[in-house]
């Protein structure tokens, strides 16, 4: 840690990590103290992330963003951190969503201490994945980000149960049918899928390490030195899919996505926000920053598969979202669909597409965070997420409706919101490489418009039933969170140049390292 920037990176992970450990010693019944303490941790992270983002010098020397400690020399493991044009926006995304998630969690009164400890640990893991430049620690933090999910969902989550209630009359979403998904199911499914994915990643990491060690005679887990080794084409083609599918599970890659709607629906609001908003990006980030960087030839060989599966994601997710009856399932499947754009962008393996993919990670993160925050408010007030029953809420919940509409419009790619730019970049990249898939992706965006607008029409407009007469709109705190997230979406929608410039400064060297650009 020779520089101040290095110290900041170190603090970004250390503050939530040790903050969570310190929280263990707090008295469990001091709810207000615990809430404020977590908010302070989130705020520190936000300040650091904003500072790093604003001062990020796209032409500058990345060497100042370095932390380096020897940790386990026998295996060549060092605790090293770094920052790049790709990770800078993602770190900011994590900071924003964590802050927003903590603020909308003001209503967590069931064992808030345990809740915030796990949530904060999870966040430190996410920071760690983005910042680690040593594969061991990247994996370490990756697992750290996954583990707390089980308890967060299992203890504080909610179950979907349509077995008792009959749907209202009229054309609805999905119609009748008995559907019952306890939260334990969602938690266990999510956990097993994600850990299974990380097993694949682990195999690939160990294989690459052993291969590099026998080639160079030196043990190292540093991503840069692993990437510098020339692996045989055969080796790359065999092991790249381990990275692609292993990380892909977390990114919601079809057909390994099914944990995602179930998990996100069962999770409490802040966890849904973080998970759909940030954690799924870890998967895409892993494919990009580990898989493609370390095994470039493998990435090229498998790019058509990745982009093809990404297209399936877009269409399959959108069509599935059309048929959902639970408000959160709609958002859950929409996440699967939108992650498809990210995966398509990665699959293009060219500058514009990759820029689009990274920008879409950021943009979708903010958008889906906003979605889940607002749906969380509706659920908290009505104790319902059943679209067939919720009607005409706009009359009582105008503010929530407005924010939900903003998120929805971002989701369908309305110009002015950041997703428009991000998806446009992905489309351009795809048209330049696989034109046919580009057409399909645009069709996916059209389907998005259908399910989003139908949802808005059903839930917010139309006659309101008497049972919602006393419904309370967003509290000032919740409205402020919503407004801040919408502001971010608008800011990068109307002025995308700076963030794209930063992303571009990270993507170009990456592609050059792969020998492509």
């Amino acid at each position, binding site marked *: 840690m020779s520089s101040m920037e290095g110290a900041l990176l170190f603090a970004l992970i250390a503050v939530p990590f040790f903050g969570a450990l310190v929280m263990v010693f707090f008295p469990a019944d001091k709810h207000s103290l615990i809430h404020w303490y977590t908010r302070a941790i989130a705020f520190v992270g936000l300040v650091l992330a904003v500072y790093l983002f604003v001062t990020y010098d796209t032409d500058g020397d990345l060497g100042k963003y370095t932390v380096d400690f020897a940790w*386990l020399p*026998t295996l060549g493991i060092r605790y090293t951190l770094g920052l790049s044009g790709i990770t800078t926006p993602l770190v900011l995304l994590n900071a924003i969503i964590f802050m927003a998630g903590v603020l909308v969690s003001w209503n967590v009164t069931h064992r808030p201490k345990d809740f915030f400890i796990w949530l904060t640990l999870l966040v430190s893991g996410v920071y760690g994945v983005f910042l680690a430049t040593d594969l061991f620690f990247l994996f370490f933090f990756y697992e750290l980000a996954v*583990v707390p999910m089980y308890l967060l969902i299992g203890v504080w989550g909610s179950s979907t149960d349509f077995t008792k209630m009959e749907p209202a009359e009229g054309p609805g979403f999905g119609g009748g049918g008995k559907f019952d998904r306890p939260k*334990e199911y969602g938690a*266990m499914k999510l*956990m*097993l899928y994600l850990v299974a994915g990380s*097993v694949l990643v682990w195999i690939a990491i160990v294989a690459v390490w052993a291969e590099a060690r026998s080639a160079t*005679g030196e*043990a190292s887990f540093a991503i840069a030195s692993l990437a510098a080794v020339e692996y045989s084409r055969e080796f790359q083609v065999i092991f790249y899919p381990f990275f692609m599918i292993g990380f892909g599970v977390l990114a919601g890659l079809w057909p390994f996505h099914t944990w995602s709607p179930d998990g996100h629906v069962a999770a409490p609001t802040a966890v849904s926000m973080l998970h759909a908003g940030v954690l799924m990006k870890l998967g895409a980030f892993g494919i990009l920053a580990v898989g493609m960087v370390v095994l470039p030839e493998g990435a090229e060989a498998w790019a058509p598969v990745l982009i093809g599966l990404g297209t399936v994601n877009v269409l399959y997710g959108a069509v599935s979202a059309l048929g959902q009856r639970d408000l959160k399932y709609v958002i859950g499947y929409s996440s699967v669909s939108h992650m498809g754009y990210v995966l398509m962008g990665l699959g293009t393996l060219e500058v514009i597409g990759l820029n689009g993919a990274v920008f879409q990670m950021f943009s979708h993160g903010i958008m889906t965070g906003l979605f889940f925050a607002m749906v969380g408010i509706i659920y908290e007030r009505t104790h319902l997420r059943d679209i067939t029953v919720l009607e005409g809420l706009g009359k009582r919940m105008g503010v929530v409706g407005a924010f939900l509409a903003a998120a929805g419009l971002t989701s369908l790619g309305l110009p002015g919101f950041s997703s428009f730019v991000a998806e446009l970049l992905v489309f351009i990249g795809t048209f330049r490489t696989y034109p046919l898939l580009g057409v399909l992706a645009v069709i996916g965006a059209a389907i998005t418009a259908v399910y989003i607008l139908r949802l808005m029409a059903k839930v917010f407009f139309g006659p309101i039933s008497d049972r919602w007469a006393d419904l309370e709109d967003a509290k000032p705190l919740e409205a402020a969170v919503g407004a801040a997230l919408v502001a971010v979406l608008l800011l990068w929608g109307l002025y995308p140049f700076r963030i794209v410039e930063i992303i571009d400064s990270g993507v170009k060297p990456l592609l050059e390292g792969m020998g492509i650009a």
Partner: protein
Amino acid sequence: MTPDVRFELLWPEFLVAGLAFLVFTLDFFVRPARKEVLAWVSAAGLAVIIAFTVPFLLNEHDSLFDGLYRVDSYALFFKVLSMGIGIAVILGSLHFVDRRLTHPGEYYAIIIVSVLAMMMMAASGELLTAYLSLELLSFCLYILSGFALQDRRSNEASVKYVLLGAFSSGLLLYGIVLLYGALGTTHFAGMAAALEGTGGVDGRLLVGLALVVAGLGFKLAAVPFHMWAPDVYQGAPMPITAYIAVGSKAAAFALALRLFYEALAPAYDEWQLLIAGMAALTMIFGNVVAIVQTNVKRMLAYSSVGQVGFLLMGIAALSPLASNALMVHLVGYSVTNFAVFFAITAFYNATGKDDIPDFAGLAGRAPFLAAAITVGLFSLAGLPFLAGFVTKFYLFSAAAAEGLLWLAGVAMVASLISLYYYLQLIRQMYIERAPEDEGGSVTVATPGVLAAVIGAMALGTVLLGVYPEPVLATIREATAALLDTGSAWPTLGSAGQ
């Protein structure tokens, strides 16, 4: 026998034996109500012996009685580990013995004798010495597992253990005989030299090897020689279950590691696949069968069978890196398992129950125990920042470095399976609610000493996971000693030692 045997190097062994007799004798003079004193004498005695042994043997490197008995940093490492395990078991047993067992004097003294046996196993440089120390350990464990005289399960466990243990001893001895017939010596170094000389491998040798592997497999509870483990684990008194799971395994691996490295390394190609296959079978079978268990001790029994599979990888890979990995995994496995077992012991002490559904709502009734069990189980499953993550990562990397990537892959999948059933217990503790009836809401109190042991083990699990380098530095020296006395290394020259 050479005249200049340095008997003084055996002081630690003499002291431990002396301590055992001291405790036996003291037992006559301590009033029944104050038997706790014996535990304190035993634990303090072992602690003092550790404090004496480490500086005393630190740089000693000798081979006593013509190589029968080794004094080196490898043996020292396991001596300290064995005594540490002994202290933990004695202190962890305190309240259990108080409530549920008779004859505490014998109980503690026999544990000390078994510690002596474990120390000798790691130091043996010859097959018969190894066999004798292994039997000494086994006899102690036969007695200890039947120590709950009133409990028929405990008696049954002991009988099963004795019968199958005797059978496995027979296999092992017959294997030793065949190896002696083929190689003309039972000294490890001599065996290695003879193996290199023979060039080809004949049938006698192969059968002998297979029988030795089978015999050790029984002691380690490796599949397909694991059948005794679940019944013994379930029936034995709880702290002894922990002791069998941790202590006997650590010692048996100490012995196996030295045997394979120093004696059998030249025949690497003949047995590598055998051990690797046994490892794969063991980890898959143990972890899959653990899923359907409803008793927590049986679940942990199968889980520890699975763990043996991981440890066997370290032998199958046979490299300095793998040896480091095996030892560090053993250390991590020991502290982790102790944390889990003693936390469960504390629960059992208070409630007398040990089925998985009995743990429902434990997080509310005993947050400390629930947290310790969770830390331990997450570590066993290999999640970060706990010991299991680092040690598994090390072990699997070491295996992959020697071309056993497929085995590492199987191990990772087995880890995933284990996470599933560990989560079942964690789910009971944190997500399910405590039963309303029969005092389900009563808090579970943990006595101070036991809480301290559990806390120390959980802390050790975390520390090893966060910063393993100090432990690894010691382990590297131990491996170096193994190399020094060892003969040909098939994979000599691997970088990274």
